Every structure is written in C-alpha cells, then in structure tokens.
C-alpha cells in the first residue's frame, strides 16, 4: 500500500537527491514519482511504501519537513499530509 507525499522543491543543488535519498534511507520504497514545474520551484509527488511496519509515514513526514529547499504540500488546512492511494 503506497502513500503519496506532495512536495515542492527549490531548484537548488542536490534538492532532488536530498529528498529521494532521505525517503529511501529512512526505510521506504519509492514506488513511483512524478515531477513538474519550471522556474525556481518544482512540484513532486512521491509514492512511498514502508519496508516494514516499524516505519511510520508521519515520522518520515517530519523528517522531510527538516530538509531545506523542500516543502511538503498539505492540501487543506488541518488535512493529513499524506493521502492514501
């Protein structure tokens, strides 16, 4: 079961590597991703699935929030950050 994380990336050195590396390093498969956008920012949707039940998507989300040059898009005020596929 994948979940999708929506992100906005600065067009800065290593920003794509940074986010993909973090997701895999923290114990999640990347099942797919789409990227779009021009100019200073790009949008990225990453479909992720934990390697095992000990890996929690909310912890991953908070780890992503620590990255500079990457912002997690939360669709609505108060909504969960990751939408189920």
């Amino acid at each position: 079961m994948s979940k999708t994380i929506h992100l906005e990336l600065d067009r800065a050195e290593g920003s794509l590597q940074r986010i993909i590396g973090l997701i895999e390093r923290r114990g999640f498969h990347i099942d797919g991703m789409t990227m779009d956008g021009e100019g200073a920012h790009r949008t990225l949707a990453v479909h992720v699935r934990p390697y095992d039940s000990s890996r929690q998507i909310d912890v991953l989300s908070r780890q992503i929030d620590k990255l500079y040059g990457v912002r997690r898009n939360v669709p609505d005020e108060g909504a969960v950050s990751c939408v189920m596929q």
Partner: protein
Amino acid sequence: MSSIGPAHIPKADDSPRSGARLLIDALERMGADTVFGYPGGAIMPVYDALTGSSMRHILVRHEQSAAFAADAWARVTGKPGVCIATSGPGATNLITGIANAAMDSVPMVAITGQVATSYMGTDAFQEVDIIGMTLPIVKHSWLVRDIGDVSAVVEEAFHVAASGRPGPVLIDLPKDIAAGTTTHTRAPSFDNRISGEDDTNALEHAEMMIAKAKKPLLYVGGGVSIANAVPELRAFARRTGIPSVATLKGLGAIPTDDPAFLGMLGMHGTKAANHAVQECDLLICVGARFDDRATGKLSTFAPHARVIHFDIDPAEIGKLRAADVSITADLKRALPALHPVGMNTAGWISHTRKMKDEFAFTYDAPGEGIYAPKLLKDLSEVAGDSFIAACDVGQHQMWVAQHCRFMHPSAHLTSGGLGAMGYGLPAGMAAKLAKPNANVVAITGDGSIMMNIQELATLKRYGIALKILLLDNSSLGLVRQWQELFYDRNYSETNLSDNPDFVQVAQAFGLEAFRITRRDETEGAIQRLLAAEGPCLAHVVIDPRENVWPLVPPGKSNHEMMEE
C-alpha cells in the same frame, strides 16, 4: 531555503572582492575566531586570502582531525566549529568528522574547495561530488555557483548549523568562484524552523502525569546541553526530587555526584540506572532519542512506563518509542514551565537511592596492576571542576563514562552516535585551544590513538598543553571483549601487542612522555601529567584481560546485564 532569491544587492563598498576574500570576511563576521584546516589545490585562493585574516588557523595533519577538532570546538564553546579542506581527498577525509557532528547534533561549518565549475563533472583532478557524498550527514549544503552568493551562503550556513537541532553544514566552493571577483553580493535569507509557541495543553498534561506518577524518572540526553538548559534541568530535578539517568551525551547535565543521579543507562550503564528505567512508571525523556545503545531491546525498554518526550526536533517524537505526551520545544523555555504539585514519590526516591548504594562500583580490584576505572575516577577528581575529558572510542571511553566525575556535559567530549576512533586527540586539542586554563585530558587507547597520532605534531607546533592519558591494553579491547563473550574467544585481528613504544613516539614528536605499569605509580602520574607545562603523554600499561562491566548483551533487555 525557500526565500532565497536570485536578486543581487549592491554593496556600499563596491570595490571588487574575490570569492575567497568574501568567504574569509564572512567567517570573521560570524565570529569564527579559530578554524581548523589543511590546504590543497582547489582551496588555494582561500588560503591565500587567509593570510590577511584575524582568524587563527590551526594546521592539522589530516583533514579528519580538522573536522573532529571543529566538532569539539563547537561542543566546548557553543559556537559552530569551522573546518576547511581542499577538493577530492581533502573533502573525503572530512566525511567521518562531519558524520560525527551529524550523529551528535553538533553545529559545524565544513568548507571544501572544489574544482573550477568548468571542470566539474569531467572527472577532473581531485574532483569528487562532495555535496552528493555528504547529503545524508549534513543539515544542508551549498555548492556556490555565483561569487555574489558567497557571503550570504556563509551567513546562512552558520544559521542553519546552529539553529533548532544543530548539525553540520557544508559549503563547496569551486576554485573559479573563490578566485573570481565581484562587486555585488546578495543578502542572506534565513529559514526559521523553530516553532514559536509552546503547547500549553501538552505542558499541563505533562504536569498532571508527573504529579500522579509514583515512580517518575528523568532520562537525560545530550539535547539538554545543546539547548543550554542545564540550569533549567537541574532546577526542575531539584524542585521535584525526581531521580535521573543519563545517556552518554547527557552525562554531567545533572552532576554525576548528585545523590539523585543514578548513572548512565544502557549497554554499559549502571545497574541502578538500568533497573530504575525498567521499574519506573513515568519516563521523562529530555533531549534524548531512544538510541539502541541506551534502550537495549526496545520492546522491553521501560515496560511499565508512560512516556513524556521533550525534544526540539519533531522528527524524534515517536521515531522509536511512542510518547504519551510529546513536547516539541526549546528545553530552556519548556522545563521552567513545569511545576507539578502533590507528588508522592518519597518511597520511589528512597528505593532508587538504595539501589544506587547497593550497586555502586567498587574500586578494590585485586592485584598490583593498574585498575583503569580507579585511575580515571581519581584523575577526574584531582583535575577538579575544570576537567574536560576528550575521549576516544572503546573500553576506555566506557570507563570514563562510568567512573569520571562530570560537572557539566561540555566537560565530556565523546563520539557518541558515530563511535569514531580517532576523535580523542583532535578533540582534546581543540578543547585546550578553546579553554587554555582547563585541565583538558585526551583519554585514549592504543587502538584509537593510532587513528590520528599525527596530531602530536600539531600539539608541538602550537604548544598546545593537552594532556594525553593512553590506556594501553595491547588490543582493540572492546572488540576483544565481545570476541571473548559472544564469538567463542576467537580473537580475530584484535591483538596489538606489536604496538610501537608510545613514549618514544611521543618524544619523537617533541612531547614530554612517561610510562607507568604499577598501581602505586598512578597518583604520581596524575600529578605529573596535570602539572606538565606543555603537551604530555602518560603511557599507562593495563591488563589486556580487563573488561567493561556491566554489559547488556546485544538484543537483551537492559535488566539482563552481564556482570564480572
């Protein structure tokens, strides 16, 4: 950095400056009075500009030492440490030190030279993708592609390194950017990540849980010192009487001789600390992260406890142990807000103190050989409140944690998360430079010291009066201990009985050095070492069969300790 834009702001002084000059000026502006580094091809413009600087540059003899020294400088001073290396091997040699700072949340600014932008991506001489190589171990990194960005990047780098949960950052500076000149620089842009408001509901909930708990316990981590919240933690512990245990990095936040301090928890923790954790009904985790060396088997760690977790880093909350109440906040603000009333914990406090007395370490080991735990305990007591231990990694590191007296966490420099042998000597060197009047002792082993022994030359070059206590058991002791206990005494590649003569080695570098082999020599050795005017090495020969006790075997619960 979301708000960094491409706009360039003209400076008032519009005389052209080189990227290297802008870098040095910015470092000075950020208060970097001492930096550690090693020159080389791609970083030459920076070293050229350095000669006109007020900064003190310490030439180490291996870039790894520059990173370790910058790390220790930050731990002792509270300001980001700075290390500089050239591209390629210079940059890769920094990596272990950067990882060390990342694991222990130490603010560090690492600056690497890079080949010129036109050569990047062509496998040029001494070209490595240091940005790519260090992505998992930095808070953030910058490859500077515009000379006008240099000043701003340095200021942003210091801000990122020191803010929130600190950590290392890296600036990769191509040679053409360092050598080129500009009259335009952009202003820095800061991305503040710290939440401004504490959650008063959570604090009230925590207060209620503490008030109701019958067996509360403070689990103190390195975050307390990083947050500069040692006085606030001590005040909280005093007004509540709650006993405490500490992680390796939390040692000294509560003075180790405080009656309510039960010792370090975890794999080589004290029996009292580990039993208290297993018995407590409320674990108040303050700036710690449930590291596996502290928790042992996680599923049976503090099995009866509800958990209150304080941390500035929201990503630590619930990462390994779910918290009943989590408070993501600056400890310096959050701890003074806690005033639980109506606590009824006298029985628990009395019980933990009885455990502490009953399970206290003893120092009456038989024989005439030098008993390292006693020597270390005596050293820390004689060295007094200005004692700073710069530890290497291995058995001696655990003995220091178990037996030394620490009055503040910054007095205990140790490679906690990474466990990097070779840390002690460069760390001690930096600590002595930062605190010339302190009794700084690098406590090392015969395995560890060989990892950065070249820094004896740096001690001599700058006359750094670091004292080195080398505990020599002619082996990689901690690995040998595990081979004895868990690998059927198959002592694979841990025998170092062909070590060089360390006294002669130290003397060859120009240091005072002496050797002791008997217990009755230890008192005199401590006096001589601490009294030496310059750098001095005491070579202490100990029994290779000595082990670190107690020990929680891998995969076991903390109460299943092995003892001698």
